[in-house]
């Protein structure tokens, strides 16, 4: 997926995204980072077709994304949001089955193949023993996995995640990131996500895209672009960037 000089604004006065160009290489994990209000979620929502860019072009396999029919696009891109809504009495299995809708005509029943895909999505996200449970009986981490499973059931090449770890504790955050890494390494999914934690972003991404004030200010390999002055510039925070063999590159915030 690549995008060229895309701009976005809700009204004429304030431009939220100014002229951004970039590429999300196939089969890689790309992570967008940046301070609050820098436009990273907006960028993701344009790429997922939730919003339409004011100008510029976004292409998948050389084709403009807005030329795809809704169901065709749903077979290419799955999206998981930070907050999701569903009726609380819906069971895990039924919610995940929604992921097969792009492959169904109206009123068509689930086929054996659909069931297999659903089983596959459930086993990858380790929800086997929860499949009959209603959503309100799940923990936050499990619930986020259900939404990922639903996107997986769409059998897309690309998976977008908007701050998937925000409301989770450390264990579930890592569990989720490991799942995302597995999906990328084993199943070749192209991942594009927005993260807040820079250490996690550095550790799990092949490519970092750093945004500030509606613009991409840096992009590339995490080890090459993350340094003390970049973080100071965009977050206004003094950090110490360290490197060691066990942990790779990591940074420790020192103060504002």
């Amino acid at each position, binding site marked *: 997926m690549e995008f060229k000089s895309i701009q976005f604004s809700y009204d004429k006065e304030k431009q939220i995204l100014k002229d951004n160009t970039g590429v999300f290489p196939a089969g890689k994990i790309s992570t967008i980072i940046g301070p609050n209000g820098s436009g990273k979620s907006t960028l993701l*929502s344009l790429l*997922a*077709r*939730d919003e339409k860019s004011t100008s510029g072009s976004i292409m998948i396999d050389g084709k403009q994304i807005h030329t795809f*029919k*809704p*169901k*065709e*696009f*749903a*077979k290419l*891109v*799955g*999206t998981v*949001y930070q907050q*999701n*809504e*569903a*009726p*609380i*009495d*819906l069971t895990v299995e*039924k919610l995940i089955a*929604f*992921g097969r*809708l*792009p492959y169904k005509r*109206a*009123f068509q029943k689930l086929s054996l193949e659909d069931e297999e895909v659903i089983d596959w999505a459930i086993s990858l996200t380790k929800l086997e023993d929860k499949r009959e449970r209603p959503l309100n009986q799940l923990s936050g981490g499990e619930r986020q996995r259900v939404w990922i499973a639903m*996107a997986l059931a*769409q059998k897309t090449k690309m998976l977008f995640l908007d701050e998937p770890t925000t409301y989770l504790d450390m264990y579930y955050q890592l569990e989720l990131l490991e799942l995302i890494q597995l999906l990328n390494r084993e199943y070749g999914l192209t991942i594009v996500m927005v993260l807040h934690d820079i250490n996690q972003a550095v550790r799990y991404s092949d490519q970092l895209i750093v945004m500030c004030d509606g613009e991409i200010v840096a992009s590339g390999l995490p080890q090459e672009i993350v340094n003390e002055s970049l973080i100071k510039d965009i977050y206004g925070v003094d950090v110490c960037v360290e490197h060691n063999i066990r942990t790779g590159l990591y940074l420790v915030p020192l103060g504002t």
Partner: protein
Amino acid sequence: MNKKNFYFVIVTILLLVVTGFSVLSGSVSVTIKELIMDLFYGGNEEVAVIRDLRYPRIIVAMFAGAALSVAGVLFQSVMRNPLADAGVIGISAGASFFSLFGMLFLPGLYISGPLFAFIGGSIACFLVYSMSWKSGLSPLRIILTGIAVSAMFTGLREALLMICSYFNIALGPSNSSTLTMKTWAEVEIIVMYGILGLVLAFLVSPWCNLLALQDKKAKNLGMNVNVSRIMISAIAVLLAAVATSVAGVIVFVGLLVPHIARQLIGTDHKRLIPFSAIAGALLILTADTLGRTLIAPLEIPASTIMAVIGGPFLIFLLRKSDKVYGI
């Protein structure tokens, strides 16, 4: 038998019992035997009265209840708001004003009542949408807009009635917006369009289920959210308009029934829609039967009974609205 099927059976049995009770009670009373005999041989004058007056009333009450309840389910689904009810948000008032309008200016047209009711309901629906869209269809905003729309159309209707009485224009019994004096012609209208609307509602139940997710999520899954929203709304307006044009404005049915139905059988629209239809029929038929037997020969209209039960219920829902499904 699981619990959900059990509720289905219970409600159906209750509906049959109340129907039987309703047929047999009233100022003219007959026995079951006489009813059945008349069915085959005819000739019983008392039963003929029941056939001409009581049967139509019962059928109209049931279909009005079913249609308004299902309209409520649909509005709640598309507006993502558990407080949406055709009466509360002004759809019924719009339908009521326009059907009176149609009756006055195109009286010859057989279909004019329901057709004009549909146009009026659609206008009211459009007004509510356009004025609460920017707030992300916030529940309170919808209610407030609905009250305004409702007041406006009720006022217009009253003005029209006043003008009619000034010029001595007779409106006929079909204008009386209660369940009394229903004819078989009216039964035909409500049964025909009622069944059409109910079947369509059942067919779109998968869409309703999908709209319970966020709009953007439904879009991600390849759904055309706006088109489905317009179509579901149109079906809901059809149901509400038909019920209103035949049975008058009855508020709160579409609020009470779907809410209780969700508690009993869950939020899956494939069950919720048929269950609400049966339960709504039961509720209005019960209200009407009680209304005409409690203080006979005087009558309390079913709409009055519903307003008395429904008012406190709306307050109750508003109080706990942050916990209710959908918001």
